[in-house]
């Protein structure tokens, strides 16, 4: 039963796309249309089926039902290579780049510039790669190994790579997640350029403001179902969120002010580490949320790791509640009541192949055991308490962490540190890749800590997030603190101003 039919006015038409994983419908009869030179924003919470949909379009998955038309002709896309040949170019969330290869090699991976069927033409590759990088406004030595680049730079390489092939459709999955102000600007520039060439673009992002800035059409999914599609201009932010989440979400937030009378929980002085951190000093009071703004590579994560002793510092002192301490390892940090919720959940946050329970207990093993022997009951209570407190959605304490949604995984990481009763929490990009619903929850959780008198250091690349959450904001750039604000007397622009490395100031 064919729902739609080929129509050459569209670049892509998808009708009744359905996909099951072991009986669970990830996609259920989803339609989507994409015109030439259009930006179609896929919106929906995590698990709504956005990624599945584009993976089907780009041949990574096969759909169980439905039809796909490309410029009006029906196509069966059975593998990534085929999708490429059809001109469907995805840039995935997890950048499909390889650290051990050079930039040029990455750009042309899969369609190398060759002398003949077999031999690679290095020079030509390098020349063209340089040109492409220049086109999207970042010049760099393309002989460099990708491993040496910052995440943002990698993102740019990924885009260049996508453009290296004759593309009809460009798919951007959460490109902005790792981007900050300046790079985002460039990205949008690039997207607009591509649009002019008549390329259709499918854009996925959790940051709704981007949707409204760059998008032409919005396609909304929820729980694998097609909720609706509409031109961006006919839709308000509130409506969109409502459609996505299926309920009202109160998003707007009011920072509450920690009174300066509160005791200083954490005091860092002159923290210095190699080239990445130079002479960083700051105060963090109990009950206060200190936002740390800055571009990728400004040294925010490095600062966090230095404080918890994951990386050795060359100079500087750390005082916890007035007492000077030597944090030589995360173990020590744990003892001093400093918790760290890392940036990269899958790499540093969770043991995915372990149970929820074991993940939560990881930080408190010494509390729940005597002489190394576990106290079963105490363990169970601790875990149950955490699960209830943060409303972690899981089949039970013994479900494997890898089967949970991004939001719930993040909650586990948080609760892991709650369980320790840590007085100081450092959250590094706590809402990256977390959907709107869960985001709001996590915000509330964070505020509750603050209310309970925890001291919180919030690292984020989302200026709006920083502004709405923090009491004070310190801006980092090139490993130093460039300025500290009171959050209610600063604008995004100001923050960006201070976040930009001096070297770049002139450009903006």
């Amino acid at each position, binding site marked *: 039963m064919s729902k739609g039919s080929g129509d050459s006015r569209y670049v892509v038409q998808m009708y009744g796309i359905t996909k099951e994983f072991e009986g669970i419908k990830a996609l259920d009869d989803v339609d989507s249309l994409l015109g030439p030179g259009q930006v179609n924003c896929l919106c929906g919470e995590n698990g709504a089926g956005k990624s599945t949909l584009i993976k089907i379009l780009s041949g*990574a998955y096969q759909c169980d039902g439905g039809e796909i038309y490309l410029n009006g002709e029906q196509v069966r896309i059975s593998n*990534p*290579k085929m999708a*490429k040949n059809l001109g469907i170019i*995805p840039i*995935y969330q*997890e*950048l*499909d*780049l*390889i*650290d*051990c*290869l050079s930039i040029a*090699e990455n750009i042309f*991976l*899969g*369609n*190398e510039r*060759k002398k003949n069927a*077999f*031999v*690679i033409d*290095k020079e030509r590759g390098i020349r063209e790669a340089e040109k492409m990088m220049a086109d999207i406004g970042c010049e760099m030595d393309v002989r460099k190994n990708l491993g040496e680049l910052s995440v943002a730079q990698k993102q740019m390489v990924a885009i260049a*790579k996508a453009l290296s092939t004759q593309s009809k459709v460009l798919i951007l999955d959460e490109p902005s997640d790792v981007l900050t102000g300046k790079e985002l600007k460039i990205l949008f520039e690039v997207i607009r350029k591509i649009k002019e060439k008549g390329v259709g673009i499918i854009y996925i992002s959790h940051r709704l403001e981007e949707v409204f800035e760059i998008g032409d059409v919005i396609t909304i999914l929820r729980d694998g179902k097609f909720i609706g599609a509409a031109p961006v201009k006919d839709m308000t932010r509130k409506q969109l969120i409502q459609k996505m989440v299926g309920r009202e979400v109160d998003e707007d937030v009011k920072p509450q002010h920690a009174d300066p009378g509160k005791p200083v929980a954490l005091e860092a002085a002159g923290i210095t580490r190699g080239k990445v951190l130079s002479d960083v000093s700051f105060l963090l009071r109990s009950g206060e949320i200190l936002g740390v703004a800055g571009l990728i590579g400004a040294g925010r994560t490095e600062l966090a790791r230095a404080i918890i002793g994951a990386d050795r510092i060359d100079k500087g002192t750390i005082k916890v509640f007035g007492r000077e301490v030597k944090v030589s390892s995360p173990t020590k940090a744990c003892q001093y009541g400093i918790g760290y919720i890392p940036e990269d959940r899958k790499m540093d946050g969770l043991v995915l192949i372990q149970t929820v329970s074991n993940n939560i207990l990881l930080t408190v093993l010494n509390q729940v055991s005597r002489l190394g022997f576990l106290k079963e009951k105490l363990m169970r209570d601790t875990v149950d308490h955490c699960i209830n407190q943060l409303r972690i959605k899981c089949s039970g304490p013994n479900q494997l962490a890898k089967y949970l949604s991004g939001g719930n995984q993040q909650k586990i990481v948080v609760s892991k540190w709650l369980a320790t009763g840590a007085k100081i929490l450092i959250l590094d990009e706590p809402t990256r890749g977390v959907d709107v619903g869960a985001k709001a929850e996590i915000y509330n959780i964070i505020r509750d800590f603050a209310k309970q008198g925890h001291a919180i250091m919030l690292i984020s690349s989302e200026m709006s997030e920083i502004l709405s959450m923090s009491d004070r904001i310190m801006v980092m750039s090139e490993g130093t603190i460039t300025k500290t604000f009171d959050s209610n007397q600063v604008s995004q622009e100001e923050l960006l101003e201070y976040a930009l490395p001096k070297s770049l100031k002139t450009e903006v």
Partner: protein
Amino acid sequence: MSKKISLSYHEKNGQIFRLARSNAIYLFLLLFFVAACFASPHFRSVSNITTLLSQSSIIGILAIGQTIVLITGGFDLSHGSFLALVSVLIAIVIPTSIFGAFLAAMVSLLVLGFVNGFFVNKGISPFIVTLGMQGIARTLALWLANSKSISFKADISVFAYGSLFGIPYCVIIWVILMAVFAFILNKTVPGRHIYAIGGNSESARLSGVNVEAVRYFAYCISAFCSFAAGVIYVSKLGVGMPDKAVGYEMDSIACAIIGGTSLFGGVGKLSGTLAGVLIYGIITNIQNLMGVSAYWQDVIKGLIILVAVYFNLVSNRRQRGA
């Protein structure tokens, strides 16, 4: 202006260090070689050096295949058994036709290499697959040879003992294979794809690289190298021996790792492996020349391997640091 100069100077300086570090293993080889020269006068003789090279050729060729498989993030523990199998196959077929013998051996090895690739592509840890294959190939050899060693008339000793302008053929073969595969690795599409899937197979797949095909390719190369090494092996012995060549895979792996190949894939150079093989060869050669007691030879070998690897490790760490 002056700033600029000082900067470039600094750059150059850094480059020199980086050069020294990225070739650390050669530094070690050189040092080791010199030390050996002092340790024994017999060592520095031309004849001994040629001997050393021809002795190293078998492991050397195996190490080529091993390095390539390691770069894909794999493993090949079947080398030893493969060697035995080749020797047996050749010994059996050679009475009918020399050419046929080589062909038979090569084809059947490529098939086994393909089987390795197949199971690895099925998602089994390469360590397990090739460990299993080690047993299977060994059994094949024993079964074909009916558990006896097979001697044959045809004289193919030229591969092991013959020489051209004083350079043994086995060394020539080794050098040629080195050159060919170095070219493939660095200059050709499949070669770069080998690095790509070693670095991150999923990304490679999404970039449209046919990961499975590349794996097949790598394991077949490894099998082919085993074949080439096997030819030299059997021509060296003049007998097909189903029960010998035990543990050669460990040697080839050790050489590759000494040469700076990473066990996690994506990183490795054949040039480094070459250095590894030579160090490995010198260890035994010099100890024999110095008449070190057989029992101590193992101990010292172990220690030197550790030192060599550590040496490479430190230099690489600093390289990254720089």
